[in-house]
């Protein structure tokens, strides 16, 4: 199959591809629109290891980064959920609905704690309470050398549903997938090549291409005077049965 064959096959199935892709895009738009709106709040915290000498700044930063990674894992595991719940008790309900995650900031001793919820206030409260819960967790674990400071808290904001992005992705993936599907169908259907290529493909010329024709029945017409008696009795108007043995020149 040459590039030309692929192009022609795609062009032949253009309606199929367009309709299926439109269905893809429509479904994506519908699903994205139906998604519940989520809100996200975050808190940026600094993790510091105390007691290091000034000359060991580089090693202190490295140690803090390692600690940030460890704390991120602890937060992601949900180990602080109980402590957080105690801290925000009475402020918000249905705390378990909020999702908390943490990500260390690369090359820095910072940690971003993110809380997601369908309720904006709940997300903010949880994002603010989690660093406190982390501090309490460190204190309870008996560590004296580690220190967590909240640098900044970002208030809740609606998380974008990425409608345009999702639709664009659906359009692109739909075109690719449906184009591939059309090519598979083309191979399975084993249809004839275009008349221009049929001759080359089968090794015999295409003598003619006959379009859908406007057809009619045998037109009634007068007999040519050589109709046999027997054939006339059949009621075939305009038809004669040739009675001679050799025609020679015909009318």
């Amino acid at each position, binding site marked *: 199959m040459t590039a030309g064959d692929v192009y022609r096959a795609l062009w032949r199935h253009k309606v199929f591809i367009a309709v299926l892709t439109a269905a893809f895009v429509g479904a994506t738009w519908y699903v994205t629109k139906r998604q519940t709106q989520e809100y996200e709040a975050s808190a940026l915290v600094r993790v510091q290891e105390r007691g290091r000498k000034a000359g060991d700044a580089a090693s202190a930063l490295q140690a803090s980064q390692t600690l940030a990674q460890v704390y991120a894992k602890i937060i992601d595991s949900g180990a602080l959920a109980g402590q957080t719940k105690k801290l925000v008790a009475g402020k918000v309900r249905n705390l378990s609905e909020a999702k908390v995650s943490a990500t260390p900031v690369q090359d820095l001793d910072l940690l971003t704690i993110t809380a997601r919820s369908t309720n904006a206030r709940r997300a903010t409260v949880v994002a603010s309470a989690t660093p406190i819960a982390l501090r309490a967790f460190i204190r309870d674990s008996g560590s004296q050398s580690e220190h967590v400071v909240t640098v900044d808290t970002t208030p809740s904001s609606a998380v974008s549903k990425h409608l345009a992005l999702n639709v664009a992705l659906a359009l692109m993936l739909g075109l690719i997938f449906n184009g591939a599907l059309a090519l598979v169908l083309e191979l399975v259907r084993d*249809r004839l090549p275009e008349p221009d290529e049929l001759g080359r493909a*089968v090794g015999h010329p295409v003598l003619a291409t*006959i379009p859908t*024709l406007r057809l009619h029945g045998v037109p009634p017409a007068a007999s040519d005077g050589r109709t046999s008696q027997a054939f006339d009795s*059949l009621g*075939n108007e305009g038809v004669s049965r040739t009675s001679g043995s050799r025609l020679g020149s015909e009318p």
Partner: protein
Amino acid sequence: MSARFLVEPDSASAEPLRALRLAIEARAGSPETKGLVFTSPRPGEGRSTISANYALVAAHVQRPVLLVDADMRSPSLHSMFDLPQSPGLVEVLRDRLDPWQVTHTFPSLGGLHVMTAGAPLARPGDVAASTAMGELLERMYEDCEAVVLDSPPVLSAADASGLASHAGTDVVIVVNRSGKRRHLASALRRLALTEANVLGVVVNREGTLATGRY
């Protein structure tokens, strides 16, 4: 009442068939070629309609032209032309009748002669390549300018190959646009085995008629 299957010779619908006639004329194996076997890989590709209309268009230019329903398994020309199926080709071969006694002439169709298939036959496969058929075709080639034979599909019966084995007989394959490539390839392979002279392929139902202001 006959079926609607013929083009109006003066209409735009006849133009593709005129082009077919010219292409066949240009590609005919030899000047002695008088017989044209119209066949198709499989049934329902429009073979009988194309052969009848080809004969009609040819009858307006070449005279006389004989259209023979050589599909003795599933004949259709008699119903298309509203003719009795019998007597026809089978009777001519079996009872040694004069072929012109069973041939119907249509003065309103350019004097086109039509021979129907005749009564059903037990083993039609034996007839197409028979000596009797060869003699009949030889006789008709002497009498006519062109003999158009509507034969069964190649992949259903060997009749087309049998008919094409007679001297002065070429083959035209009619394929529907929605037909399968492997069927056409198989049909051509089968015809090649008997060294049939295939003039070419006619693609049927390829879009709609584009006439514009013509």
